């Protein structure tokens, strides 16, 4: 059990244990006392929190399934006008976080908003406000999250459809199935594990969503956790609420992992795989396919981008008031530091796992990658709880200076929590790169006289170079969009595009939120375009 213990083993174990801190903190909080807020909440809002979270989850899953699977099916099986463009354009929705989508939706449909202005310019003055639908509250939150997250389902469903062999399709024809029947009897069931994996990711993100639900004043478990900390200063209760939410999320995490393992069967392109030939759609069918994909692309990306651009142009003073350069430097500062730290430690951890091949380490590593399933709000609060406990119980008992200031409200603390949140992204990304390196490659290297360290530096790093770049960009994309951790843990007077947009919006200054939102969307979109080939696992040209 303890064979192959070396410095790499201990480094990997330390990294895994560090990432597990929030989970341990949340679970241990179960035994702590809470304030009266717990009683008040139990008698008043707790049911509402759970009910709202459930309604939100149900409708977001339903809509993301319809949009994600529908668009993936069309671009995978058919050729129609701009189908190749939609193939990657549909993932641009990742550049628009739900909270920015929420601002756009409100800005467009609110009284005297953009829709009103358009109608007024087209048809002159009238009382249009009563005829313009209002997308706020629960419905607004559902739409914002759906259009921002459907791409998870789209990407995984498309990858599954892409690898479905022509043989499978021909089998359907051979059995005399219509296209409709083939879709429901063959294509959809074969892609089910991939779709379930996509939906599980959507579910986890939805339960973790803070910005959009907070903006629409929907009380969910996540906002409840935030409020119990901000408004009632009850960390123990925040952690207790987190515990229930985590149980829920871990169930989804297990389903997602299980589905992903099954999904691998559908990516097998060895032996008998025959590339599909896309069917060319003509006439009204081509038009309908185009309209559907364009609608989704427009609503998910062009609409929020256009709204933010419109406001930036309409209220240029906001652009000049905002210290864009400072925000850019702050954002890049976080992005570069976090990416570096994440990649270096994930590399070390992966290599430690590889050379130690130790069961205990494997268990800790598997547990530690669950960080991505934990909402940022919970991570931030659990981190604060842990530092407070560590400060009170350990540091002060040795008569040392308080360490709270070093970790809370500092760049270091922020990066550490980003590390926990996005560790799985970096770890899994590097792991899948490592899986392509046969273990005999390492052994060959040793036999050529290379030490473990030299093998790592001279053989592995050059091999993983492209993967590392891709992972760095993915991490950057996540950090640019990230809101709750940054909001809770950032140093005083340190703002990013995301926090500036949130603060302006929460002060009802939506026009002022437009400029940072626009920059955020543009930078994120740029990163998505750079990495689209990898995201789509695209080999079909």
């Amino acid at each position: 059990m303890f064979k192959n213990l070396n410095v790499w083993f201990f480094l990997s174990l330390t990294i895994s244990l560090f990432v597990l801190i929030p989970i341990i903190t949340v679970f241990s909080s179960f035994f702590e006392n809470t304030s009266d807020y717990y009683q008040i909440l139990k008698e008043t809002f707790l049911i509402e929190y759970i009910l709202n979270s459930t309604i939100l989850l149900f409708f977001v899953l339903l809509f993301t399934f319809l949009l994600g699977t529908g668009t993936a099916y069309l671009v995978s099986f058919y050729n129609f006008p701009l189908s190749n463009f939609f193939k990657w354009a549909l993932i641009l929705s990742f550049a628009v976080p739900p909270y920015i989508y929420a601002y756009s939706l409100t800005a467009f449909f609110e009284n005297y908003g953009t829709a009103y202005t358009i109608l007024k310019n087209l048809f002159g003055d009238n009382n249009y406000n009563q005829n313009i639908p209002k997308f706020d509250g629960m419905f607004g939150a559902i739409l914002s999250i759906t259009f921002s997250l459907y791409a998870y389902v789209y990407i995984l469903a498309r990858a599954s459809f892409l690898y479905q062999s022509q043989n499978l399709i021909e089998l359907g024809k051979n059995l005399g199935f219509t296209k409709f029947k083939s879709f429901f009897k063959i294509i959809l069931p074969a892609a089910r594990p991939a779709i379930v994996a996509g939906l599980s990711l959507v579910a986890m993100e939805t339960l973790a969503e803070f910005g959009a639900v907070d903006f629409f004043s929907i009380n969910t478990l996540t906002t409840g956790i935030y409020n119990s900390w901000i408004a009632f200063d009850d960390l123990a209760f925040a952690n207790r609420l987190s515990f229930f939410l985590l149980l829920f999320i871990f169930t989804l995490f297990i389903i997602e992992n299980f589905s992903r393992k099954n999904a691998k069967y559908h990516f097998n392109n060895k032996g008998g795989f025959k590339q599909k030939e896309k069917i060319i759609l003509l006439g009204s069918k081509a038009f309908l396919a185009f309209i559907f994909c364009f609608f989704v692309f427009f609503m998910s990306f062009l609409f929020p981008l256009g709204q933010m651009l419109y406001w930036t142009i309409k209220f240029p003073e906001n652009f000049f008031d905002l210290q864009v350069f400072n925000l850019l430097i702050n954002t890049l500062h976080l992005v570069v530091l976090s990416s570096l730290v994440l990649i270096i430690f994930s590399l070390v951890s992966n290599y430690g796992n590889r050379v130690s091949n130790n069961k205990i380490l494997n268990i800790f590593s598997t547990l530690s990658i669950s960080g991505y399933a934990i909402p940022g709000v919970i991570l931030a609060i659990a981190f604060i709880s842990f530092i407070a406990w560590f400060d009170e119980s350990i540091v002060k008992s040795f008569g040392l200076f308080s360490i709270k200031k070093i970790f809370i409200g500092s760049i270091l603390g922020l990066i550490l929590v980003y590390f926990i949140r996005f560790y799985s992204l970096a770890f899994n990304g590097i792991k899948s790169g490592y899986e392509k390196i046969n273990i005999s490659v390492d052994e060959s290297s040793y036999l050529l006289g290379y030490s473990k360290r030299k093998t790592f530096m001279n053989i592995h790093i050059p091999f993983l170079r492209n993967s590392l770049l891709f992972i760095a960009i993915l991490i950057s994309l996540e950090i640019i969009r990230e809101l709750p951790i940054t909001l809770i843990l950032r140093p005083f007077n340190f703002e990013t595009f995301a926090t500036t947009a949130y603060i302006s919006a929460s002060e009802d200054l939506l026009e002022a939120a437009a400029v940072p939102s626009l920059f955020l969307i543009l930078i994120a979109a740029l990163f998505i375009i750079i990495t689209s080939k990898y995201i789509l696992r695209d080999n079909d040209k």
Partner: protein
Amino acid sequence: MTNKNFFEINNVDFNVSGKTKVKNVSFSIENQGDVICLLGPSGIGKTTILRTIAGLEKINSGSIVLNGRTISSKKINIEPEDRNISLAFQDNSLFPHYTVEKNILLGAERNKENKDKKISLKEIVDLLDIFHILNKYPHQISAGEAQRASLARSLITQPDLLLLDEPLSNVDQSFKEEIQVRLKKILNKLKITTIIVTHDSYEAFYLGSKCGIILNQELKQFDDPYKVYHFPNSVEVVNFLNRGILIPAKVTGKNTLENWDLGTIEGNFIKEYPKGSNVQLLLQPEDLEHDDTSNLKLEVVDRKFRGTNFIYTLKTPSNTLIPVFVHSHHIHQHEVDEKFGIKRPIHIDHIVCF
């Protein structure tokens, strides 16, 4: 074993993942530059032996000694990178992100301080005929080419001990024999001590000055290829080599035996048996000669055309099936169910009995 041997394995159990694959193995390589081959069926533990010698697996008993230095024992385990042993894996183990040339040059970096380098990249490339793939990446070449590139990388390191795991298993049959000739020449020239693992007995007999047969978790025989073939020391080795059958016989004299179906058989016993002993005689396909004028006639039940020869399977009156080689230019071809004459008296050079 003496300390004069260049390489020694003394009473080693070879394990992988806690399971013993081959027990209590001992053999030695006397001189630097000798080539030995280990033969055995798939999954028997041949690769485990090579991995252990290379230092990739540890041992709990016995010792492995290279050039007077113990490199593996229960207490000593020199790291693979410090052994100067090279192992060419059966499967492609080229570095996937480097070209074939870069892969080979990485091998050349080892022992680069060795000024009297005896082989250059060009020589290796010519030897293994891999010039056309030098600028390609491992995923762009065939399995056979990858195997040759891997072999080149191992050879150029000029290790103290070279371990080759089924080195030519993916090489085309038409090219295999030529590569075997070239490989033998280069190993002789460079005086690289080599252990080759293979399941191809012809390859082992050609390349190795000694052959080890591994069966049922044991090294059954370790000897010259000629002796392994003609004087197998156990029924298991006979069955593994699949080059003959065992028939019952009775020792009737110093140089004779009697078989119920074939009559008297003459020859030189490699081991003495008392007169009247009942034994199992090893009868190899080349031991019997065809003679249609003979009165010993057996029924043909099968005939295999093997290019240079036919292998007839004959049925004796007691229903024993006997293989017989006949030159393929032989004008008398016998069909199935026909009678086939065997020259008498039957004479076998080496009589092997169990």
